[in-house]
């Protein structure tokens, strides 16, 4: 297995070789070893979106039970760890709220262990926490979860590889072209510089957009800490006249 020093050096080389300002991860980022055979080598082909690509799937109250937004009450017991509130807005590239749309999250427990059967990290499973949640954004594009702060966890990318604590997010916009799957991180994580997945985004300002903000006004007395994270999807292609929400 490669050392952290080697991975860290490869990250630095890849950053130096990438023009500044990239808004998205490099998909050919070899410090993330699993990407080697799984990234396309040809440039993505430009296509003008049409027809079905311009319409996102629609989700509603028939799809999502409100209790799915509270990951701490799903299993009859109190999960172990730091209870936290997590909220923010989902916006499109023009700053419009993405209303009444599905947000899905999944995460490790406080000890850094997923419920997933293939997670072999020898940290305890918490029978009161599966780490899976869903909600719909409200009329202002706001999502809201109650959960437990996840722990960092080891993985096998290289010797002594550890992922910074994170929550996986899955998002839809109003067009299917806006589909986004990403990960939210916590401020000040000492593992940021070492992590090839986070560092696959070579631009510091873009990386910063994946980091939530601690919000003391959201923190509640004797109950839970509060974090805020806004999400911006790519822009839509409809002209203003075609949109039904004029603002």
């Amino acid at each position, binding site marked *: 297995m490669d050392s952290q020093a080697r991975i860290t050096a490869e990250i630095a080389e890849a950053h130096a070789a990438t023009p500044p300002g*990239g*808004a*998205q*991860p490099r*998909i050919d980022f070899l410090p993330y070893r699993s*990407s080697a*055979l*799984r*990234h*396309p*080598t*040809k440039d*993505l*082909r*430009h*296509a*003008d*979106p*049409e*027809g*079905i*690509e*311009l*319409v*996102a*799937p*629609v*989700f*509603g*109250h*028939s*799809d999502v039970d409100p209790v799915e937004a509270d990951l701490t009450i799903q299993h009859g017991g109190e999960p172990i760890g730091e209870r936290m509130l997590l909220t923010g807005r989902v916006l499109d590239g*023009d*700053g*419009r709220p993405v209303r009444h749309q599905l947000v*899905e*999250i*999944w995460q490790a427990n406080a000890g850094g262990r*997923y*419920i*997933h059967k293939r997670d072999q990290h020898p940290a305890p499973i918490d029978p009161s926490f599966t780490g*899976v949640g869903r909600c719909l954004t409200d009329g202002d594009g706001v999502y809201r979860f109650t959960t437990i702060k996840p722990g960092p966890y080891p993985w096998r990318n290289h010797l002594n590889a550890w992922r910074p604590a994170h929550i*996986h997010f*899955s998002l839809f916009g109003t067009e*299917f*072209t806006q*589909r*986004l*799957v*990403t*990960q939210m991180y916590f401020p000040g994580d000492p593992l940021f510089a070492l992590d090839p*997945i*986070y560092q696959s*985004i070579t631009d510091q300002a873009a990386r910063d957009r*994946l980091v939530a903000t601690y919000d003391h006004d959201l923190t509640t007395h004797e109950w839970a800490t509060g974090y805020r994270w806004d999400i*911006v*999807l*790519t*822009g839509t292609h409809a002209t*203003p006249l075609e949109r039904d929400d004029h603002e």
Partner: protein
Amino acid sequence: MSETLAPTPGQTIGPFFHDALPYDGGAFLVPAGTAGAVRLHGTVYDGSGAPVPDALLEVRQADPSGAAPRAEGSLRRDGRFTGWGRAATDASGRYAFTTVEPAGVDGGAAFFSVVVLARGLLDRLFTRAYLPGQSDAFLAGLPAAEAQTLRVVREDDGSLRFDVHLQGDRETVFLRYPRHER
């Protein structure tokens, strides 16, 4: 018009999405046995030709009349056709949807819009799966070998096969749309 905001970057779906994203009935856009139902299936391959057992595909499609469904209810379908489905690949890298064949929207070619996610893939990929015999200016503008990667094959049993090659000689053509900054 407000100014354009910087987008939130994507990240890999990772290895542990199976308890969160796949769900009962996700791959059944229509119930099995529905009149006109067809299997849309295939294998996801990596650059060495090995199957990818931890990928997730989503399809978005019109109905057989070419209408783009805007009905809610994809997670709990209750008989509604919503034109969206989600399926993880199995241990052999295979996925399968049960659906109906879409028609083109507004006179366009008939295709499934497909999103591919996988462990090892740092951002989602978009592609199109064109029904047999369909074409349009985009498909016709591609070199023949590349266009072939976007064509659904009708199998002898009537099912539709669409394999995805993330890399390699038969690498699938993946798309970027205007306003996707890379």
